[in-house]
């Protein structure tokens, strides 16, 4: 039996006018410029998506990953028919529900009960279906007691739990989800994850899933798509795609800042960042392993070498500094002329997020090579490991540690 793909994306592109992103037009501007169409300056446009093609079979769960501005949200918006593509075509062989935001259309003045009906209808559920699922939705959300309270008096946690509960009971064949697992506390996230897993395994839904939570992508999706600046970088097995995203590929880093390095003298040629098991999915209690590859012109060995590895968080704050001169556990001061420097840490205990690595190499106190953002890695957290009840705000603390009060 040959099955037809349930989602078929053929060479979809989307162009945005940069001008259109600026503050709105006024009638006067338009009249005085005498320009009916906004397509006046070709140079003011950019391709948010270019030639995206993808086929998804029924029952498949496909992850979409990529950095900010890679085009993930635009792609989902096209699939959910919120905005049309500039060219190309999409064929959907089944009903689609899209969840680009949790709680779309929630009205603060209305009660929890009223918002279940409102939100359900906006997401495309019929009144009958909502009524049938009502008890299930309420039980899943855990806000029974507040059903007749206006949601403006809900805590933000209750609000997202209710909103997610409605969305979790959608029953269309195709689900398009954007960052929906990032809501609620860890207990609720687990529940949501389990709900999604059962939607795919037992109910056979087809899901397109965008998330920054690479662990969730890894768990839910066999196949993934990596977008980079609006283009498909790679489609394939999720592990391979995630590794590509995290910059596994050596030699791929940009040498953005070079202080004094005489490239003939010495240069880094690659970096590999993993946990102690060699996986690029790093949990906060994992030990970190950094492998730095280098080459040099030194004949036999490099005398008095020193490496400083600095780790920064995504707001460019310094988080850790690993200095080969500071620790007693260091390499031989006479390094080989080419090879690898390996740095292993104890549990890093960093909070969830993306981190950057800067490398500085000096010989006899002279800087030889300095690479900013030589590599990046992503850390995921399970608050339970630290005996936390919920996930702490990462803007408050970069580090996680077990502690007790008495």
């Amino acid at each position: 039996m040959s099955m037809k793909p349930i989602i078929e994306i053929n060479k979809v592109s989307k162009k945005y006018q940069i001008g259109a992103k600026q503050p709105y037009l006024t009638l006067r501007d338009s009249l005085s410029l005498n320009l009916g169409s906004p397509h006046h300056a070709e140079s003011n446009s950019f391709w948010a998506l270019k030639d995206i093609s993808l086929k998804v079979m029924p029952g498949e769960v496909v992850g979409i990953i990529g950095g900010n501005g890679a085009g993930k949200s635009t792609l989902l918006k096209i699939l959910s028919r919120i905005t049309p593509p500039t060219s190309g075509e999409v064929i959907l062989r089944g009903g689609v529900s899209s969840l680009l935001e949790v709680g779309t259309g929630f009205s603060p003045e209305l009660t929890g009960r009223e918002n279940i009906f409102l939100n359900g209808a906006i997401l495309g559920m019929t009144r009958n279906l909502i009524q049938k699922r009502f008890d299930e939705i309420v039980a899943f959300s855990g806000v029974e007691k507040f059903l007749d309270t206006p949601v403006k008096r809900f805590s933000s946690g209750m609000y997202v739990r209710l909103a997610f509960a409605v969305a979790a009971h959608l029953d269309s064949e195709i689900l398009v989800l954007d960052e929906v697992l990032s809501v609620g506390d860890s207990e609720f996230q687990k529940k949501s994850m389990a709900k999604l897993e059962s939607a795919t395994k037992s109910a056979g839904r087809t899901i397109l899933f965008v998330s920054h939570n690479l662990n969730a992508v890894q768990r839910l999706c066999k196949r993934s798509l990596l977008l980079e600046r609006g283009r498909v970088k790679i489609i394939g097995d999720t592990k391979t795609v995630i590794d590509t995203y995290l910059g596994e590929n050596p030699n791929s880093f940009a040498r953005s800042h070079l202080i004094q390095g005489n490239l003939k003298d010495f240069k880094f040629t690659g970096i590999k960042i993993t946990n102690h098991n060699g996986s690029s999915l790093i949990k906060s209690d994992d030990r970190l392993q950094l492998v730095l590859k280098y080459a040099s012109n030194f004949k036999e060995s490099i005398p008095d070498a020193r490496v400083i590895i600095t780790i920064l968080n995504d707001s460019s704050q310094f988080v850790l500094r690993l200095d080969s001169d500071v620790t007693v556990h260091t390499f031989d001061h006479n390094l080989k002329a080419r090879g690898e420097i390996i740095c292993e840490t104890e549990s890093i205990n960093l909070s969830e997020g993306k981190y950057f690595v800067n490398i500085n190499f000096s010989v006899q106190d002279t800087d030889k090579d300095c690479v900013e953002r030589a590599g990046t890695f992503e850390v995921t957290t399970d608050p339970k490991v630290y005996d936390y009840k919920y996930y702490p705000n990462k803007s408050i603390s970069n580090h996680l540690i077990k502690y007790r009060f008495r």
Partner: protein
Amino acid sequence: MEIIIRPNRSVGLLNLGELWRYRELFYVFSWRDIKIRYKQTLLGVLWVLFQPLATTGIFSIFFGKIAKIPSDNIPYPLFVFAGLTIWNFFSTALATSSQSLLSNEGIIKKVYFPRLIIPISAIITAGVDFAITMVVLILAVFYYGYHPNWQILFLSPILLLILLMTVVGLGLFTSSLNVKYRDVRYVIPFFIQIGLFLTPVIYPLSVIYDYRKLLLGLNPLSGVIETFRVLIIGSNKFDINLIVTSLVVSLAIFVFGLIYFNKTESYFADIA
């Protein structure tokens, strides 16, 4: 079910099948707006009557008693209340529907459904107030001792059709224009205010000279209000030419609004 997404999804003027599939949303959006409006109000539904009754009182004193504007032999309060009932529906429906796409911007950017539902739901919401006021008007008609002409039975659906086509057409046009050009929101209240004086609400069409009458006849609300007032006091002296003119003009407004809306609909999420 197979959905094909292409750059230009022009599916004709009206995709009725799709509207039918999403029909519950008309109800849901109107229901939401009504609920929100009467949450935390003391008088609740009585507010619906407050505005037309207060306006009727004031207009009766100033235009009826003091300025002595003629009213085709109808008691001035009843005359102006009948006009205001229709005019208030028109102005409220137009004002809210022209703002509706913007005030539902958050939903438009995140969920797909036929966008037409939003401005039309705003009109339905205004229709609820209209129905309540209409009941009071009918009571007032009997209170003043009039019995409506029997022809109202088949003419009122036509009048309603004219009224709805006009307000839907204008609502669709202004709401989509409002997404693109934000100065529309300042212009509309002004036009509504002017419109009250260009529509025979506080005066009858009979006080106007012929060629100007023709001009005012192009305003479809003229036909609706004039005919309606003639009928409720039991007379049959309505002007059939005026009704036909109004019908043709309102149909033109409706089709124009629909075409303009369809042309801009798919880009709302990009520019809103």
